[in-house]
């Protein structure tokens, strides 16, 4: 290898100059009017998944309002911890917005032995987006048309009964139901809801706790029958689905989505973000879109959102204890 120092440096210099011409991007615009740069939405689930669809919808709507590119960055993993940590550590300049289920971020504080950040302190809620309940469903072939019928049958079956869950939400809902109703059913866990359908059909499973997107889609197909929802009050999205509470099993488990930013983001930016999302969520189009996901629009001020966030974190502490869920290492 012939090494000529002078020409080497010359080449490096040339390379640097060329490389500089390539990637020159506008400098950090802290002194300019917000937003003066592209905005990034962080999505904690993989591209194309149900959640990703929701994030992209809002990205598109925001783009129309602020006339800036809104990039969706997928940072999946560890039930959202990776994305949460990423956002908590990003610059609090309003250009990184975490669009995700704040309830899940809250739950992770207790689901994990060592959560990567203290979400209550590191993340701020700028705006809430929607509220979705979980659902209790049975096979369409089963004879149970109400929760009462199901409960009676399950009591009879005792330890021979089985039910499906596919997420911590489902597990918690299942536990509350079991305890209040005094059942001994065995929980069967699945990686995702569709995996459990075959067994629900063949009768190996008696009932299941499912997320709303899946439940509604399958009910439309006539492949499951939803008996009740887990929210405290009936939702406008599904007004004829009774709540577990009114059927005698008190619970108020809702997943709620929010736009979140790092905690030290200035109030002016937080309020701006709140303004944008409120504007988007208020529209009829968004309402219909959110309804199709089985949820209702949910509008709150940043302060109210933050208070709810802290409350949810506490609640999940209770849930984990009650459902005897072993925090993941």
């Amino acid at each position, binding site marked *: 290898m012939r090494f000529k120092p002078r020409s080497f440096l010359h080449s490096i210099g040339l390379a640097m100059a060329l490389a500089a011409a390539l990637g020159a991007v506008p400098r950090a615009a802290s002194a300019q009017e917000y937003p003066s740069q592209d905005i990034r939405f962080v999505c904690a689930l*993989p*591209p*194309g*998944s*149900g959640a*990703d*669809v929701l994030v*992209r*919808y809002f990205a*598109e709507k925001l783009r129309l309002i602020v006339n800036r590119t809104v990039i*969706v*960055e*997928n*940072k*999946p*993993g*560890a*039930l959202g*911890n*990776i994305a949460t*940590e990423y956002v908590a550590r990003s610059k609090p300049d309003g250009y990184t917005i975490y669009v995700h289920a704040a309830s899940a971020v809250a739950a992770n504080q207790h689901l994990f032995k*060592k959560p*990567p950040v203290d979400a209550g302190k590191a993340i701020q809620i700028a705006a809430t987006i929607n509220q979705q309940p979980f659902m209790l469903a049975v096979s369409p072939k089963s004879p149970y048309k109400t929760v009462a019928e199901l409960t009676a049958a399950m009591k009879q079956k005792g330890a*021979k009964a*089985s039910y499906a869950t596919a997420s911590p939400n489902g597990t918690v809902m299942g536990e509350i139901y079991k305890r209040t109703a005094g059942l001994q059913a*065995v929980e*069967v*866990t*699945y*990686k995702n809801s*569709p*995996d459990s*359908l*075959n*067994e629900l*059909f*063949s009768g*190996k*499973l008696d009932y299941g706790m499912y997320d709303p997107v899946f439940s509604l*889609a*399958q009910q*439309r*197909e006539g*492949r499951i029958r939803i008996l009740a929802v887990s929210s405290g009050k009936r939702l406008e999205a599904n007004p004829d689905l009774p709540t577990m509470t009114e059927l005698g099993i008190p619970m108020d488990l809702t997943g709620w989505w929010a736009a979140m930013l790092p905690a030290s983001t200035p109030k002016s930016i937080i309020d701006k973000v709140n303004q944008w999302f409120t504007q988007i969520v208020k529209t009829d189009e968004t309402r219909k879109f959110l309804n*199709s996901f089985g949820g209702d629009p949910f509008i709150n001020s940043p302060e109210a959102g933050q208070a709810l966030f802290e409350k949810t974190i506490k609640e999940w502490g209770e849930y984990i204890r009650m459902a005897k*869920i*072993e925090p*993941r*290492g």
Partner: protein
Amino acid sequence: MGFDFIQNLAIGFSAAASFKHLGFALIGCLLGTLIGVLPGIGPIPTIAMLLPITFRLSPLASLIMLAAIYYGAQYGGSTTSILVNIPGETSSIVTCIDGYQMARQGRASVALAVAALGSFFAGCVSTVFVAALGPPLAAIAQQFNSPDYFSLMVLGLVTAVVLAHGSLIKAVGMVLVGLLFGLVGTDVNSGVARYTFGISELWDGIDFLPLVIGMFGIVEIIRNLEQPTLPRAPVGTKFRDLWPSKKDFQESWRAVLRGTGLGSILGILPGGGAVLASFASYTLEKKVAKDPTRFGMGVIEGVAGPESANNAAAQTSFIPLLTLGLPSNAVMALMMGAMMIQGIQPGSAVMYKRPDLFWGMVASMWIGNAMLLVINLPLVGLWVRLLTVPYRLLYPAILLFCVIGVYATNANVVQLVLTAVFAVFGYILLKLGCEPAPMVLGFILGPLMEENLRRSLVISRGDPMVFIERPISAVLLAITLAVIALIILPQFRKAREEAFQE
């Protein structure tokens, strides 16, 4: 039924064959192929990257384009498997085994052409499957319960051993090691994290891409760099050399047929069916061949069969999505997401409420396949010419694309560290004569197998007889035993011969 079917296809073709839609199919195929061809980037990252482009289009147009991107990326992935031994996704791994060897023998264009033609044939046949047998096939897939999936995975794992052309016992070892690596991450049945060493990024397990790129792509580059002179693939310049000979066709048409059949059936099974298609086809070809020892050295059946199986499975894997609204693999999940963004709820309702959408998609599958053939056959010459670029310029480019591919899929430095780790691991294994392909299959199927095993036992409350009581499971286990016998018997015969010789 026959008349309905033709009528439906007519609706579909008229919807899909408008200039606009043909145009989108073409763009999709081109984009998909070009991105898929970049080493390290297979169908899933490609579709994910190009998904936003489809948002502004009408539902049918976006579906057509997405499907075209998918086939294009699959084909592009096969191209890289053949040319540089880097699989873009699971099904391309098998193509690497013999396809790359063919390329090293200067028969890259033949391999590429056979892959294209085989895939086209398989695509046509399986499209008919989808159109005619969609719903009844989906009904069968719905019968699969956890014990059946378990047995299917066991069968898959046993066939994994056949992938190796070297020592059988080391291949078994590799499959087991792959199984162990597959366990890294959260255990579905209990929520406990296994072998994660506290690293958040390992919580969901080891990503497929870093493992495969490290053990296949990077190791290959290093291997080439160790040679005293850098590789230079001999390339036939006459068109006659670029096109498969009559002999090639004779050797491969049966493999194509078998692959198509296998792939069409396996693709329908949600959760893992399509992955098995190319592996199963390779196993079948090896078992059926008169001289199985040729496999691994550049045998055309080793490309024709798996590629056809691959494509057939890719087509039929749309069935659960279109008829039941259930995605059978990650790509279908992406498609489903795309449909939902467009406001379509995938499921049987689509067939009745929007027949133009459903049948239009089916028709566009055929159109997409045809287009791919048209685009790619001429491109074969281009790819082969790419091989003539001096290796010293080529391999940094390959390395860069691999690395970008990994990072673009999951933007985390840990992924790249993993890639490096697997490169080193793969290198060590290379030196010790262990093959990576069986390990990768163990890695993919292992966790599924364990998950279903434990779930079956929870549901049956600990009764192991459930695996034999269920008919599907029993049949699959019986086939597994048969395959094991087929594998072991020749070994005994060989050992006896060796013993006699001594």
